[in-house]
């Protein structure tokens, strides 16, 4: 066990997998010598060699095409997209190719790639360094979508993603790289070292895809969240004194429906929280599924607390971010009737 922040835990996951499996290769813009603009691949090239960890041209579509081809050969490529906001030029290779290859070839070919991309706001990144586009990928059959909320999970989930035989999109809430963030932006940043989830084994372990975690047990209302919003949800629960059960999804597809349904059936109330824009966000799917599975258990309407349906405005970051006050309000509304 060592203490790691989330960037270090991700680095450790890749380091571990590079050492374990000669078929693992890592590449992306600035990930080689420099070690990535968020330092997640720091020192990996120096340690494992230039042909295992290397820089690519600034062409996200080309990066994922390369990853698909390598996967077809039999490698386990891990590609970094520098910001989730820049994944769009690569969407065709993800949607039409990586996600469809096993199906269309009758199981003969597959592309077991992992795409890592920092997502989310709260770092004054403006509209092109703050997006949370995960919902788009959850609509694409054949892709798995993973979003960790802490160092321990991040390493274990990334190892699972690399070992998974299907393509995995792995979004890393960049606001969490250095410390947990509960939305109280006016308070000083707390480093991960102060939290148990920063206790990370140095070697190999994994956290399974498709399994949610209940990060706070409660009986009044279920809060479904992932990534940064897990911390915000917990903060909101503490603020309100409402005994919320907070579920950290960890994987969006495949979803851990059982954990969610069991919780909502118990509490009868539900608040869904995500940072992404509201309309057709993943919260919509969660709301629909919960309504379909728990209709007769619901005592009040399912609430969504999300980013606004606007680009992420630089100077109004904290008016945009769905912070603990906004979540608290929703919790109170949900408890009303």
């Amino acid at each position: 066990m060592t203490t790691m922040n989330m960037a270090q835990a991700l680095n450790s996951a890749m380091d571990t997998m590079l050492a374990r499996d000669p078929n693992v290769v890592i590449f992306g813009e600035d990930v080689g010598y420099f070690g990535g603009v968020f330092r997640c691949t720091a020192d990996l090239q120096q340690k494992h060699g230039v042909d295992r960890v290397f820089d690519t041209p600034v062409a996200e579509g080309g990066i994922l095409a390369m990853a698909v081809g390598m996967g077809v050969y039999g490698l386990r490529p891990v590609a970094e997209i520098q910001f989730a906001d820049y994944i769009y030029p690569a969407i065709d290779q993800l949607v039409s190719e990586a996600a469809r290859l096993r199906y269309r070839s009758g199981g003969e070919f597959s592309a077991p790639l992992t795409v890592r991309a920092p997502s989310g706001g709260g770092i004054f990144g403006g509209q092109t360094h703050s997006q949370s586009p995960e919902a788009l990928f959850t609509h694409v059959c054949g892709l798995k979508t993973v979003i960790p909320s802490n160092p321990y999970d991040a390493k274990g989930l990334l190892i699972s993603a690399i070992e998974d035989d299907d393509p995995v999109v792995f979004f890393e809430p960049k606001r969490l790289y250095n410390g947990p963030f509960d939305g109280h932006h006016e308070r000083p940043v707390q480093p991960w070292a102060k939290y148990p989830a920063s206790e990370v084994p140095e070697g190999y372990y994994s956290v399974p895809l498709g399994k949610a975690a209940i990060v706070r047990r409660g009986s009044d209302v279920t809060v479904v969240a992932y990534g940064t919003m897990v911390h915000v949800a917990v903060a909101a629960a503490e603020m309100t004194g409402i005994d919320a059960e907070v579920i950290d999804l960890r994987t969006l597809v495949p979803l851990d429906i059982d954990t969610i349904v069991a919780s909502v059936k118990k509490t009868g109330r539900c608040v869904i929280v995500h940072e992404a824009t509201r309309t057709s966000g993943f919260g919509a799917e969660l709301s629909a599924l919960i309504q379909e599975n728990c209709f007769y258990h619901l005592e009040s309407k399912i609430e969504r607390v999300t980013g606004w349906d606007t680009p992420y405005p630089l100077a109004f970051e904290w008016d945009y971010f769905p912070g603990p006050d906004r979540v608290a309000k929703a919790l109170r509304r949900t408890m009303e009737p």
Partner: protein
Amino acid sequence: MNPENREPLLQPALKLHIPEPSARPGSAPDFTHLSFAAAGAVRRPQVSETARQMQDLAFDLIRVLDDTGKAVGPWRPDISAERLKHGLRAMLLTRAFDERLLVSQRQGKTSFYMQCTGEEAVAVAQAAALDSTDMLFPTYRQQGLLIARGWSLVDMMCQVFSNSHDRMKGRQLPVFYSSKDANFFSISGNLGTQFSQAVGWAMASAYKRDHRIASAWIGDGATAEGDFHYALTSAAVYRAPIILNVVNNQWAISSYQGIAGGDEATFAARGIGYGIPALRVDGNDFLAVYAVTRWAAERARTNLGPTLVELVTYRAAPHSTSDDPSKYRPSNESASWPLGDPVERLKKHLIHENAWSEEAHVALDQEVKEEVRVAAKEAESYGTLGKGPKPDRSTIFEDVFKEMPWHLRQQRDELESEQ
């Protein structure tokens, strides 16, 4: 504002240029823009020559067979008559296969078909020039690769018929073959994507210190996609062991190659800007295609990196069974194509070499047609589209993921409950 900026000069107004092909329905075909030197006239550089030194080749047209069927010049390959006859057979077989399945489509046994008529030399000669372990990333118009590799016609037909023996379980559009055993990559409906993926595969092969190289194909039209650029960039940067083939068959559905930029420069010339050696070859000249492919394969195999090859040919058939070319090009354009027919030209060469005869040709033609007929009978016995056996419908939910997640199991049960 900058006070010193001048007023716009009094000049004629700007005008938007929209390229137009040399002929449309109703006018006479015109290929005068396609100029090329005589067979044998283009030089053959060392494989180690730099891209910079060999820029001229991107604008020339490498040809080996002259009008009499004689193989001439420095690109004349060292290939036995036996192997050429094998190639001739594969081309004839490909053509017979296309003809038969076109009829099947008309009979409703499949919903869709795509021929490669007039372009058979591209796939067949290139297959002959590569090792069988080399990995192919084709488009829908290189069925000749599979046929030349001796792949089962029945298996191919079962895919076209979406029947119970279709290894793709009825999922894919007809002609979108896939064969891991034949090192033939799953064809995608999305143009161009395989071109850049192939570079990734080639990089992986180099990373693993393998000996296998990749070969990828793309149409003239699809060169405009981003994937073409990604492929050339990454192939150049990482010196990937790959042959990047542009099949310029003059048309992209109804758009002539000028809409892809072909009037401004050759497609081979695209390689120059990336420092990739580029060759332009008569795609209907089996010997020239073979020779050029061998040359490019040698470069790839000896760590000299990628080669871009433009194969100049003509799409004699409609784009697909959904297309009607008489709507956009002169109906006799194909007959005026100055580079002839690949089958006829190879036949003439073999006859010129006294290794072949008209009679042998007729016999071979009948033999391959019979082979196709027998294969079709067998394939049809496994079902045709909407008739006879087909894959189990619960397979709809398989292979989306390696293991079926709960929501797909639930949906499968939902479908099953529909009886």
